[in-house]
Each structure stands twice: as C-alpha cells, then as structure tokens.
C-alpha cells in the first residue's frame, strides 16, 4: 500500500470538495430557480465533462497552461507557477471534471423544494440568505451530501486526466489510481492488488451510501 499516494488522493478529494461545495450550491440553486437567456448552453457546457474523454480535457489543460505560451506563461510570470505537473493543477482539473457531479444532484435537490414554501418564507420577511440557510439547505441536504460523496469518490478514482496533466510525480501528483498503474508496471502485483481491493471496497461503500441517502429522503418526502 502506498500510503503517501492514498493520503495525496484523499487530500485532493477534500480540497476539490472545498471548492465544489459553494460552487455547486450557488450554481445548482441558480439553475434550479432561474430562467435566463443562454441557460441551456450553460447547462450543456456544465454537463460536458460527463461525456468528454478525459484525454480531451487533459489536452486542452496542457495547451492552456503550458508555461511556453499564453495563459500559462502569464501565470508563471505573475504567480511563479502554472497549473500543470503540480498539486494545484490537479485541484483545478478535478474541479472542472467534477462540475456535473456536483451541480446536477444539487440542482435537482433545490428544484424539488416546493415553490410555496420558499414564497411563504419570503412573505414572512425572511432575507434570501436566511431562506437559503434555514429553509432550502435543510430540505436539499440529501442531494448536496450525495453530490459531495460522488465527487469525492470520482476524484479518488480519476486516472486519465491526472496522468496527463499531473505526470506521475511522487508526493505531488502520484495519486492512488496512478500508484496502482505504477506498481503494475513495476511487476509488484501484491501492492497493486491491495490498493485495487481497497478502492473497490471504498467505491462500493460510496455507492451504497448514496443509495441509502436517496431512499431515506424519498421516505421522508412521501
């Protein structure tokens, strides 16, 4: 077991969640309640990572953040670093490819809140931020939690894009999924087996948890 790689993966997943939680809530809620020009285009763009091959996304990230030109060059000149072959780069990539996994369930959860409840709260003089905090979030939380769990697991398992924009650098971009790949190529079948089985168990737990959560929220809604 490569504990360093596991720790790195868990850290990557948590940092990704830290960004995706507010993004998902704000964007999901906005898409659930508002109609505006260009909404379907925005939704298409946000769903794109679901079907886009990770190599395509990886390729564009490599081009965009290459320190030899354009945006990447500007980042290097301004911040001294760019967003490929380092941990920050993995965080950025994870946020992009997890967007649909964060936003869709949250959007559905917010859309399921009856309009009358929100209007009643507003009529009682509650500020919108208070409505969100006291009314909407308590009702939408199963959707939010399951979105976060899916993002966590998805980040833990992501391979192609991590290998492409991260390389395979120990302690920096060598996540658990990459470590398995690396161990197989080092003919270390035992380590690969242990790590694969751990990820298999974890993935099963994740899926059962989200199923349990959605079954639970259906019961309370009935």
């Amino acid at each position, binding site marked *: 077991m490569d504990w*360093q790689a596991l*720790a*790195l993966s868990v*850290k990557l997943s*948590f*940092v990704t969640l*830290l960004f995706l939680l507010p993004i998902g809530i704000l964007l999901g809620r906005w898409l659930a309640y508002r109609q505006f020009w260009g909404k379907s285009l925005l939704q298409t763009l946000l769903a794109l990572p679901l079907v886009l091959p990770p190599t395509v996304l990886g390729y564009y990230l*490599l081009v965009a953040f*290459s*320190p*030899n030109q354009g945006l*990447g060059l500007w980042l*290097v000149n301004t911040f001294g670093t*760019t967003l*490929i*072959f*380092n*941990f920050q780069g993995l965080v950025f990539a994870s946020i992009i490819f997890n967007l649909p996994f964060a936003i869709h369930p949250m959007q559905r959860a917010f859309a399921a809140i009856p309009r009358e409840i929100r209007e009643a709260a507003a009529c009682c003089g509650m500020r919108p931020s208070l409505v969100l905090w006291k009314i909407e979030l308590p009702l939408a939380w199963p959707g939010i939690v399951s979105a976060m769990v899916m993002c966590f697991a998805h980040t833990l398992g992501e391979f192609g894009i991590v290998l492409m924009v991260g*390389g*395979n*650098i*120990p*302690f*920096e971009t*060598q996540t658990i999924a990459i470590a398995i790949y*690396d161990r*197989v*190529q*080092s*003919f*270390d079948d035992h380590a690969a087996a242990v790590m694969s089985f751990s990820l298999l168990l974890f993935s099963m737990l994740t899926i059962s948890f989200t199923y349990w959560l959605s079954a639970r929220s259906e019961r309370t809604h009935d």
Partner: protein
Amino acid sequence: MKFSVSTKRLAVRYLLLLFFTPILSAAEIPVIAAASNLKFALEEITTAFHQETRKSLRISYSSSGNLTRQIQQGGPFELFLSANAHYVEQLYQQHKTLDRGQVFALGRLALLTPIDSSLKLDVQLNGLKQALQSRQLQRIAIANPKHAPFGIAAREALQKQQLWHAILPHLILGENVAQATQFASSGAAQVGLVSYSLALAPALKNRVRYLLIPSSLHQPLQQTAVLLNNAGDTANLFFHYLQQEKARGILARHGYTLP
C-alpha cells in the same frame, strides 16, 4: 456528541494544516525524470546514494519521449535520464538543459516470454518467425516506438530480421518498456521484445524466460543523463554519483553495458 470549543478549534486548525501543507516536505526533494527501463537499477543506486549522502530523490518513470514532452511543458524535474541521446539533444536545442549530458550506460534488448511458454528463443529471432508462420503467435509486446526508445530499438531489430511487416498485426504497444514487459511477463502477450534490465528484475525471477539480443540488431541505446536548467545541489551530486564506481557496478549487474 458534544465537543468543547477548544477541541473544535483544534480540529479546524488540524484540517487547515492537512489541506494546505504539502505531504512531508516533499517540495524540497528533487524530482528525477527517468526512462522506465532504469527502474530497478535506479532503485538500488538511489538507495546507495541515500546511505552515503543522506539525501533523498523522487523519481518519475515514463517513456523518454513522454518525459521529454513533460520537460518541454515545464515539468518540475531537475535531472533527466533518457534511454537514448536523441531526446536529450532535442531538449538541448530548445535550451531546456544545461548541456548535452553524459552517456552513463548502454541499454540492451531482450526477448522475454512467460516461464511456461513453449516459444523457442534465439538471437536471430528464428523462433519468432516460425511461430508467426505456424500461426502460433498471436501477440507480441514492444514499447510504443512513437515515444519509447526501446520500442524504436525493437522495431529496428524486427526490421533487420525482415519480420516487421509480418509482425505488425500482432503488435501490442506498451506505453513504455515497463508496461510492454508487464504484458509479456503476465502472459497477456506471448512474447515481448523489451529491455534486458527489466527481464533481470528480481520480481520477475522464476516467472519469465529471456534471451539477450545482440546489440548489432539496433542503434545503441545510449542511456543519457542531463541536468536541467533548475537543477540543485542534490541533483548535481547524483548526476556525478551515477558515473562513479558504485553506480557503475549496479548498472552492470542490471544488464547494462558500460561506456
């Protein structure tokens, strides 16, 4: 469950620490970009280097072509160990390296099969030819010649023995020579034309049969070390260590010819 305020504060602080500090002080350990065929020799050399100097190194393995691309794109490497001189020369022309580097070993090709395979191994590759003609050979693994020097050498050897066109439909390309070796040693492919150093890997002992291929069948596989522009003291030290007696002994034991 109730937590006191100070416990909560401590937990928050711990979480913040977890998120924003790099794992270990990894940032200070230099990263070497190394061709996959060097894996097991390099493990031994870095261990010896650590014992003598107390300095650690991180190694990122891939095909030399892939690593060259990562270096061009600003990968954070301080030293590059390429499986041929061509990629180093390319990086030198693009001002990514300090100089033209140093050849520290010559790689060799080997034919490798799972231990229970009935395939005949011979230096003229006649066994391969026969297996092809009798339709016994379905899959042969080599590294991808588009970006892996050992793949290029394997292609040259097969071309020299007039086997390349017949073998094309049976090729499985590994991302790098270690993956090609894994394909062949696991039986996923029946045979591999891979690096001798990996055929000698301790983990493959009693799992494979192999045969050293004459170096006359391919261009020399000049394992070239080159310091990159941001190389620090440790990388410099290791660059020289690689060319000293101890490291040379280890390389020889792993099947490399020494320059």
